[in-house]
């Protein structure tokens, strides 16, 4: 059969960071095509290209053999491409019915016919939403029902290509089966379905073909059932870069009392009872799929979240009413390298020097910004130690490369002499050379007795750097991996919350 969609040598980058590189892919009608890859493999970028949200920098997208350039999502919709994004796109204060009828391609000023309402009702019933009233406000529905409405809305457009990006993440297995029945019916009617999911059993249940993506590249496409789960996971992860990681230091003896202890930390609905211990000299990893509570735990420890329950203790003393300002004091000695370097870690228009000094300003005598103190000397030493490459310290920090920017963030916090360092995805979007430098630094710091909590979306990083890895799923630690059991397969299996044997 002729392909419905054909991508040829498509590339796309964001601010110089490649998201997709030279991707060629065909999607055939009458088949469910699953896309697999780790976080950051380029799946979402691929979907956005097809949906017309973004345009490729190079390469072409052809539909029915004709090259198309989508200027807006409306152009893509006109070609029969309907996308259901991971982030729900329903308008919370409108009713279910209004949401399903909005933007269905009719003229803006046309009256809504009763027939379209009836059709919307029928589609919602088909996907298993019989219990949802059309007049209900979206905001009043639970997440699972919202997903059903979203799916019904997509199917109601009579797509030729239906893109489902983690569309069933909030649904129970029973509901998923109803949705899958509809998807299979659509496929049998000749519709092409692109299906993105992290759940292996969903892939098994519904996919006809599978494509693996890694680091923005299309690695391989094969028929479903021709590869084992292990083989697919290996393809997703790729070979490990052994030379990237310095040899791991021995963990501190188990008898060492933890410096930081978290007990039953809750912040509904993101944290549902998390325990964590970190010893001096230990690197503890936080892994799992994106958004399973790892980031919230870091924010909770650093005093960013309000109204958490549970306890955080540092050297046996319970920390209460913590704010970032209190967390960084000498008495407590926490430091957080935040997730987004550009909006959270740095003030881009400020100079390198000012960014380096920002966290330490609170310790200046008499509130005089220019008074020199111990922090300045520490910063000077750290610039050397980290090998920060810069023109002048008076240049805006945004002129630095991503790797050097991250070194500034690290130096800013290390200058305060913290006792426990919280790192959120510290090597995201950083070149390999700087990555290696940062890994070596972290090992050295741990060797000097610093306690490090490393949250990362990079499995290799967790496996090769950490003494122990806590794997998160739905706001809880579902597994702790250490030593020989910390393998990519085990980590992925734990992230998907299936046991390692089943995966």
């Amino acid at each position, binding site marked *: 059969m002729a392909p419905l969609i054909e991508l040829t040598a498509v590339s796309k980058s964001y601010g110089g960071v490649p998201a997709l590189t030279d991707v060629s892919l065909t999607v055939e009608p009458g088949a469910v095509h699953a896309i697999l890859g780790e976080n950051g493999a380029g799946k979402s970028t691929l979907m956005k290209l097809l949906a017309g949200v973004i345009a490729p920098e190079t390469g072409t997208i052809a539909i029915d053999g004709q090259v198309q350039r989508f200027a807006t999502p409306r152009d893509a919709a006109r070609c029969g491409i309907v996308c259901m994004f991971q982030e729900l796109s329903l308008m919370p204060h409108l009713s279910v019915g209004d949401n399903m009828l909005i933007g269905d391609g009719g003229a803006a000023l046309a009256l809504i016919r009763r027939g379209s309402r009836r059709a919307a009702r029928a589609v919602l019933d088909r996907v298993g939403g019989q219990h949802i009233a059309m007049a209900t406000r979206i905001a009043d529905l639970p997440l699972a029902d919202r997903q059903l409405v979203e799916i019904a809305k997509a199917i109601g457009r009579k797509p030729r290509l239906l893109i489902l990006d983690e569309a069933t993440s909030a649904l129970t297995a029973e509901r998923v089966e109803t949705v899958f029945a509809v998807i299979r019916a659509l496929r049998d009617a000749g519709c092409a379905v692109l299906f993105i999911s992290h759940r292996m059993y969903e892939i098994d249940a519904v996919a006809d073909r599978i494509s693996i993506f890694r680091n923005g590249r299309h690695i391989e496409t094969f028929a479903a059932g021709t590869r084992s789960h292990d083989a697919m996971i290996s393809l997703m992860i790729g070979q490990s870069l052994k030379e990237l990681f310095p040899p791991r230091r021995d963990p501190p003896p188990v008898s060492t009392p933890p410096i930081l202890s978290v007990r039953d930390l809750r912040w509904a609905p993101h944290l549902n009872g998390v325990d964590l211990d970190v010893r001096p000299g230990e690197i503890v990893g936080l892994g799992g799929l994106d958004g399973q509570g790892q980031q919230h735990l870091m924010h909770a420890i650093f005093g*960013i979240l309000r109204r958490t329950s549970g306890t955080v203790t540092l050297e046996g003393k319970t920390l209460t009413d913590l*704010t*970032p*300002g*209190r*967390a*960084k004091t000498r008495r407590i000695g926490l430091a*957080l390298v*935040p997730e987004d370097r550009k*909006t*959270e*870690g*740095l*003030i*881009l*228009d*400020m*100079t390198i*020097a*000012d960014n380096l000094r*920002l*966290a330490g*300003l*609170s310790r*200046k005598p008499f*509130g*005089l*910004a*220019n008074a020199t103190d111990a922090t300045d000397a520490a910063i000077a030493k750290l610039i050397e130690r980290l090998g920060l490459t810069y023109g*002048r*310290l*008076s*240049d*805006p920090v945004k*002129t630095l490369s991503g790797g050097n920017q991250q070194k500034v963030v690290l130096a*800013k916090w290390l200058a305060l002499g913290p006792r426990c360092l919280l790192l959120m995805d510290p090597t995201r979007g950083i070149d390999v050379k700087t990555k290696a430098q940062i890994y070596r630094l972290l090992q050295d710091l741990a060797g000097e007795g610093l306690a490090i909590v490393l949250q990362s979306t990079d499995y290799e990083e967790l496996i090769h750097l950490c003494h122990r890895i806590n794997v998160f799923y739905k706001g809880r630690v579902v597994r702790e991996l250490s030593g020989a059991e910390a393998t990519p397969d085990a980590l992925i299996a734990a992230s998907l919350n299936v046991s390692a044997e089943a995966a």
Partner: protein
Amino acid sequence: MSSLAPGASRPRLSGLRIDPSVALVVAGCVVIVLGAGMVSPGVLSLGYLLQQLQIAAIVGILATGAMLVILLGQIDLSVPLTITGTAIVSTSLAGSGNPLLETLAIPAGLLGGTLIGTINGLGVAIFRIPAMVWTLAVNAMLLGMTVFYTGGFKPHGAPPPLAVLMAHGRFAGIPNAFLLWLLVGAATTFMLKRTVFGTYIYAMGQSQRALFLAGAPIGRTTVAVFALAGFLSSLGGLLLTGYANQAYQGMGDAYLMPVIAAVVIGGTSILGGSGTYLGTFVGALFMTLLSSILSLLQMPDAARQIIFGGIILGMLLVHRSRRAA
């Protein structure tokens, strides 16, 4: 990008760079004065120019407070009634005939302004209400209070003698008001360039989130800046009271626009995070000269407002294109 002046040993946020917008405004001042001088040569006399400095001091001190708030990325729309309220409180006390109350006239006026500023800051920092809405509501409430207090008539009382002395007096030929402005300006420049508080103000205007994650006291900084702005508004209000020799309803109304214009024309980003005090200084001079000369040319008030508004929009466009370049 920005270039630092040679010899600057310690890089600073606002730096010592020669701000093109400052140069532009200075050129604007010169053009206005010379142009008006051709029409009426009296403009070029020392006496006239010193008098302009005296008037500019009121706008300048008010603009100092407005600038601090704008640097945070916020705005204070309660300036008009902070001025009027301060004037009414201090003239009432100064004209009360009770010696104790008379001495309290100026401190009470300043305290009142600081209090209004603190309320503004608390609304923005704790309740997270956008400053544009909160300060506008505070302004409306103050208007109601002053009308309630005065019954809508011209308030009774007398200006505090010290305010009159500051507004009208001269020291070595230089208007006291201008000297006071220089003092306020020097203190503000020191605060912005040399203190941690000043660094926080700029950083907060750039990225409140990043500053919060760096462990800086966001809430306290916000409240302190608004309180300081309230203090400076009432200081400007006292100077105006002394200059006008009275308090009257609506005396602050004409100042909101020129004050914000002075800050923006001086190159301070209306979005916060960048701007120099020197810019605000020349901006206040420019607005005062423009206003005086337009009235010297017997331009009706309506036309003056149109020109003010037009100049603000024009300068915003100039700054925008400069940033985009």
